[in-house]
């Protein structure tokens, strides 16, 4: 009696382990299935093909006088193009890297030091900084000032003071000719 009993118990144990395996395997399959169904539902929110296929733009910069800036739209965002003055270039180039929150040399941010091309979107939370138009506040470092939460950028678009973590982003661009740049 006792002996039969034990062997039966062993049987149930083995059965139990098999059943555990079947249960775990079924849950796993159901989980994978659920994830496979959920993915299209989630991924549809990412940029669509036409949004991704946004064309590049060409900008004629010959009409920008020294000390003036223009703003163009690229990928739905403003791009700042500034024809910098001698002073601005000198100051931008002479800053010590140790003074910078996001250390970067001015020469690494321009392909022609006269023209600064960058995305005019504050790296803090995305506002468009002031300083493009004459008369606008340019901040403590004579570059751009973001009014939203007070970020100051210098004449190279580098973050100097305020909550923004990094310098204004440089978009991919090339000089097609002396006075024509292609962004994107």
């Amino acid at each position, binding site marked *: 009696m006792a002996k039969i009993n034990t062997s039966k118990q062993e049987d149930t144990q083995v059965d139990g382990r098999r059943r555990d395996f079947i249960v775990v395997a079924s849950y796993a399959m159901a989980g994978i299935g659920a994830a496979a169904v959920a993915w299209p539902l989630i991924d549809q*929110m*990412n*940029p*669509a093909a036409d*949004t991704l296929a*946004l064309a590049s733009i060409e900008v004629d910069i010959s009409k920008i006088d020294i000390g003036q800036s223009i*703003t163009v*739209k690229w*990928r*739905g*965002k*403003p791009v700042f193009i500034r024809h910098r003055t001698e002073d601005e270039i000198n100051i931008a180039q002479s800053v010590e890297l140790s003074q910078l929150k996001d250390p970067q040399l001015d020469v690494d941010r321009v392909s022609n030091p006269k023209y600064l091309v960058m995305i005019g*979107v504050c790296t*803090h*939370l*995305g*506002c*468009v*900084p*002031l300083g493009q138009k004459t008369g606008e506040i340019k901040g403590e470092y004579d570059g751009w000032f*973001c*009014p*939203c*939460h*007070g970020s100051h950028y210098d004449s190279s678009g580098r973050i100097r003071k*305020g*909550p*923004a*973590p990094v310098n204004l982003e440089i978009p991919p661009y090339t000089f097609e000719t002396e006075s024509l740049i292609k962004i994107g």
Partner: protein
Amino acid sequence: MSADKFSNPVVRWIDHRLPIFSFMDHELNEYPTPKNLNYFWNFGSLAGVSLVIMIVTGIVLAMSYTPHVDYAFQSVERIMRDVNHGWLLRYIHMNGASFFFIVVFIHIFRGLYYGSYKAPRELLWILGVLILLLMMATAFMGYVLPWGQMSFWGATVITNLFSAIPFIGDSIVTFLWGGFSVDNPTLNRFFALHYLMPFLIVGVVILHLVALHRFGSNNPIGIDPSGPQDTVPFHPYYTIKDFFGLSVFLTLFAAAIFFFPNFMGHPDNYIPANPMQTPAHIVPEWYFLPFYAILRAVPDKLGGVLAMFGAIAVLFILPWLDRSPIRSGNFRPIFKIFFWVFFADCIALGYLGGMPAEGIYVVLSRVATAWYFLHFLVILPLLSVIETPKPLPQSLSKSVLGGSAMAGAASAVKEKV
């Protein structure tokens, strides 16, 4: 629950198969409620009414609204000028959001003062905080729909909060936008979600009520009713009181709609969205200002975002921060002082959030932010250890009738009026 409680045979027939009338009778009619509730207990039902008002006006607005960047602003202007009663519907919806938040904020401070978050109501409280979060998300997305300057830049700044998350932040923001900036895909999905979320709120509100009815309402004294002599049936006593509160609320609400419909809004939102130019001074809707102040107080991007979400997160764990077994602030002399200091701190944060982020405002925002967290993380846990509470009355009835000799009763009586 016997079906012959109802005299109408149709009601009886239905109730036998689907006990919906028994349920309503149980939860809304005979439901025993502490007899000493003061007017701060009106704000739960007011919040419920506000939610219904928002859903009804929202659905009819959606019938004339167009979620497209080229048409959204005009479609809202058309609602204002051409759609029959459109101006009224929109002003109700617009001001309704503000009144909803006023009501819910008072409801929350009520809970904070009377210790309604303490055992056994922790889950009830947590569901409430969840409703607050859902409301904030709903209101934020609703504010984007008219596609004015504040809509656009509010959406930009708030979605960019997620870019602070290390490594995956930028992908998350692109995912939220469905593009490389706030644009038409963003507006479309915000409309879909703005339509959906209020119904999620309804779901959580139902859970909130189920949790409430498990132990019943807390009360100004904060001790449990000791028997039927301490409670009254919900109907007619509190239905009538809730209706009275509702008429006062609707009077004020109507006054705002008809006389100051744009007082709580921002004029810049009547300028169509311009992705090339940020308004000189962007501010969120007033109900977000305290959180906005906390965001700006921290000079680090990730830190600011964490602090802002932390300000809500700390509410979730409040039942475990304040360990004092005494619920009502009436019997906690030191807590009471700190409660009002905290209240003032929240008002101050709201004010500072609306001021430019410069000079003295930055310093004050930092102090107020520090105090906000200090209150929850240091003062409340400490008070639960060092404070000596006043003696509690023996029962609700005694405190209400005031005819007893206990020390605590005097202040309790004063409060119930």
